C-alpha cells in the first residue's frame, strides 16, 4: 500500500519507456486521477468551492487539493455546512486543521431553521436533513455564487451513487436529474453550464473506503479522533450505538447509558450517527477491521434508511 517516498520514484527495469506497469500502485493511480479532476475544475470554472465535512473523505480531498496546486496555495475556499449537531471533536478538529494548512473556511448554518426548533427528534430526520443540510448547502452555494462544488462522495458508498458522474450537473435550484446525465468518456470532462446551473465534482468517485484509509495511512493524514476506538458513553438503540457525549440526545423510556469501546465509521450529526463496537484505535487496525467486516459504512447512518431509495431522493433534492 505504500506510496513511493518523496524523491524516490518507482525503480526502473529495462528500457525507460517500458514503465513500472506491474508495480504501479493503485493509490498513486487514483491520486493522479483526482488531481487531474481538481485541476480541470480550477481551469474551467469561475468560482469553485470545496465542501468540507470534516470526515475522512474530506481530509483526503484536502490533501489532494494541496498536491494538485503545489507549489501554490489551495485556490478555492472550503465550505462547512454546520447543522450545529456535529460532534464537538469535529468542530475542534476543523478549526485547528484548517488554520494549520492555511486554507480559507466558510461556515454556513441555517440559523432560521435552528431558531424554529428544527432537530431530528422533534421534526424527524427527513425534515431535519432537508432544512439543516440540503437547504443550508444550497443557500450557501447561492450566496457565494459558486459554480462548482467539490464533494467527497464515492461511488462505492451507496447504490444510487454508483451512477453518479464525476462532474454532476445541477439545475438552477441545485437538483440532480439522474435521467439527464452527460456521458463521461476518457478523461474528457465537459465543463459547459448555462447561467445559474452548477456542478458538483467528485474527485474520489473511483475510491473505495479501504482506499481512503490506506491513503490516510500512507500519507499520514490527520483525522478526527472519533474514528478511533475508545470507551464511550452510549445508548444502545436498535443496532446502533448512539453517543451520549453530546447534549443533543434525549434518552427514551427504558434506555440507560452504557460504557462501550467503540468508534465512528462515518461522521455525521451526533444524534443520527451510530458508533460501532470496535477495538481499532489506529489506522492500520481500522484497515484490518474493514477487510474483515461485512457491513457497509452507511449502515449506521439513520438518514439513508428512512425510506426506500432515500439517498437517491435526497440527491435529487440537492444533497450530495
Amino acid at each position, binding site marked *: 500500500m505504500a*506510496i513511493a517516498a*518523496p*524523491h524516490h*520514484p518507482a525503480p*526502473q527495469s529495462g528500457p*525507460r*519507456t*517500458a*514503465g513500472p*506497469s*506491474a508495480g*504501479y*500502485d*493503485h493509490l*498513486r*493511480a487514483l*491520486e*493522479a*486521477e483526482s*488531481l*487531474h479532476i481538481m*485541476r*480541470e475544475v*480550477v*481551469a474551467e470554472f469561475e468560482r469553485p468551492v470545496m465542501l468540507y465535512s470534516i470526515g475522512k473523505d474530506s481530509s483526503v480531498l484536502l490533501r489532494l487539493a*494541496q*498536491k*494538485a*496546486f*503545489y*507549489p*501554490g*496555495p489551495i485556490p478555492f475556499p472550503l465550505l462547512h455546512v454546520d447543522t450545529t449537531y456535529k460532534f464537538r471533536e469535529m468542530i475542534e478538529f476543523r478549526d485547528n486543521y484548517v488554520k494549520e494548512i492555511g486554507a480559507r473556511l466558510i461556515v454556513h448554518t441555517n440559523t432560521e431553521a435552528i431558531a424554529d426548533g428544527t432537530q431530528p427528534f422533534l421534526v424527524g430526520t427527513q425534515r431535519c436533513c432537508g432544512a439543516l443540510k440540503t437547504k443550508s448547502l444550497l443557500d450557501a452555494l447561492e450566496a457565494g455564487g459558486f459554480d462548482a462544488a467539490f464533494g467527497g462522495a464515492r461511488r*462505492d458508498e451507496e*447504490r*444510487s451513487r*454508483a*451512477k453518479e458522474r464525476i462532474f454532476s450537473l445541477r439545475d438552477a435550484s441545485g437538483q440532480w436529474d*439522474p435521467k439527464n*446525465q*452527460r*456521458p*463521461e*468518456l*476518457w*478523461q*474528457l470532462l*465537459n465543463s*459547459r453550464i*448555462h447561467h445559474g446551473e452548477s456542478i458538483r465534482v467528485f474527485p474520489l*468517485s*473511483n475510491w*473505495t473506503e*479501504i482506499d481512503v484509509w490506506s491513503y490516510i495511512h500512507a500519507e499520514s493524514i490527520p483525522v478526527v479522533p472519533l474514528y478511533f476506538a475508545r470507551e464511550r458513553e452510549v445508548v444502545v438503540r436498535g443496532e446502533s450505538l448512539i453517543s451520549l457525549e453530546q447534549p443533543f440526545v434525549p434518552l427514551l423510556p427504558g434506555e440507560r447509558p452504557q460504557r462501550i469501546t467503540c468508534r465512528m465509521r462515518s461522521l455525521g450529526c451526533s444524534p443520527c450517527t451510530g458508533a460501532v463496537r470496535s477495538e481499532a484505535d489506529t489506522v492500520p487496525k481500522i484497515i484490518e477491521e474493514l477487510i474483515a*467486516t*461485512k*457491513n*457497509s459504512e452507511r*449502515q449506521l447512518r439513520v438518514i439513508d434508511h428512512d425510506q426506500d431509495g432515500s439517498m*437517491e431522493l435526497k440527491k435529487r433534492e440537492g444533497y450530495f
Partner: protein
Amino acid sequence: MPGLLRICTAGSVDDGKSTLIGRLLYDSRSVYEDQVHSVQKASRNRTAGPIDFSLFTDGLKAEREQGITIDVAYRYFATARRKFILADTPGHEQYTRNMATGASTADLAILLVDARNGVRVQSRRHAHIARLLGIKDYVLAVNKMDLVEFDRTVFEDVVEEFDRILPDANLHAIPLSALHGDNVITRSERTPWFEGASLLEFLETVEVERTALSRPFRLPVQLVMRPDQDFRGYAGQIVSGSVAPGDLVTVWPSGRASRVKRIVTWDGDLSIAHAGMSVTLTLEDEIDISRGDLIAIGDIEVGQRFKAEVVWMDERPLDPGRVYLMKHTTRTVTAEVDHGLVLNQIGSVTISTTRPIVFDRYAENRGTGSFILIDRSTNFTAGAGMITDPIRERSPIVTKPSAAERLARIARGAPTEAEAIAGVKKALEDLLS
C-alpha cells in the same frame, strides 16, 4: 500485484449481465451484509431466485421498478491479488452510447452471450464498439450453460464465431452459469471438458496490453502555475510515455523547444515521471505556454482537419450545418463535421476545427486521439470521437477558410442571435489581438 484492472461489461437484455456482476461481487465478498439484507428484502416480490443478484447493480429507483438497467454503473471490488473497477453498461436501447462510455476507460471487456441464443446482432455490435474504443483483451462469457445441459458443442460454436468477429483480439472464453455460480469464482464440476480458468481467476491474473507507457511522451497543459514571480510551472497528467529532467521537449502548437528543468510535486521533485502521473514541469527557457498546449517528445500531428470515427450520443442528430465545441486533451475549439449522424449511430466523418489541434491517431494513443463534441446550445456531451487519420493540406493557405468566412461560420453556427454576436465579437478580438 498486477495492479488495477478496469473492466467494462456488455451483453444483450436478459443475457444475465447484472446477475453475473452481482454474483461476482457477492461471491468475492465485495458486497456488504446490510446491502445483502436490503436486496433480500427487495427480492421477495421478484422471481430470480433466493437472492436477485441483479439488485446489487441496478442502482436507480426507476430501474428497480422497471427491472432494467438504464445507465452506466461503476462497481469496485478487490481480491488479495488485484483491485478492479467495473463499468456495468446496459444492454438495451442507448447501449451504444453507454457502452462507448464504459469502454473508453476500460482495459478489458467482458462480452456476455446467452448460450441458448448464440451470437446475435447485438453481440456483434458490442464487440464492434469495444474494438472501436481500442480494447484488445476480452472475456467471452457464455452464460446460462445450465439451460443447455453444459453442452460443449454449444460453447464451442459461440467461441468459433467470436474468433471470426474479433480476429486480432486476446479472447478468453468461459462457459458459465451466473445464476448458479458455475465457473464464476471457482471451476465448475459440471464443465469437466473446460480446461481454462474461472472468470475471477482469469481477471486476477490477466496481463493486459497497456500501450500508454511505451508511447512517446505527451503532456497536455492543464494549468500554468505561477504562485510567485520566480516559479512558472506547467501542470497536467501525463498521457503517455515518460519524462526526466534534461529531456528535450517541444511545446505545441507553437513548435518551440526547451529542456525539462524540474518535475515538481508536493512529495518532492521527481527524477522521472510516467504515463498516468499528475505532475508539474518547469522548463529551462521562458516560452509562452498556456492551457491547451501540449508538451511532447517525438513526432506529432498538428492540424485543423482530420478523419475520425464518431459515436453520436445525443437525441438531437449531428447537424453538419452547425458548429460544435470540441474538447480534445485540455484544449477546446469549435469544430464542424462534414455529415450528420443520429443517436447511437457510429460513423466515419471529416472534422474541421477553427484552431489547430495537436494529436495522434487513436489507435496509437487514446489520450491524444480522443475527443468529445459538445452541443453549444444544450451543453450536452453529444459525440465521442476517435481520430483515425490526419488530413494534410497540400497548400494550407488555399484551403484555410478566410477570416470573413470563419466569422460567418461562427454566426451561422450560433443557436441564438445573442450568442452569434458574442461569438463574432470574441473571434474578432482574437483575430486583432
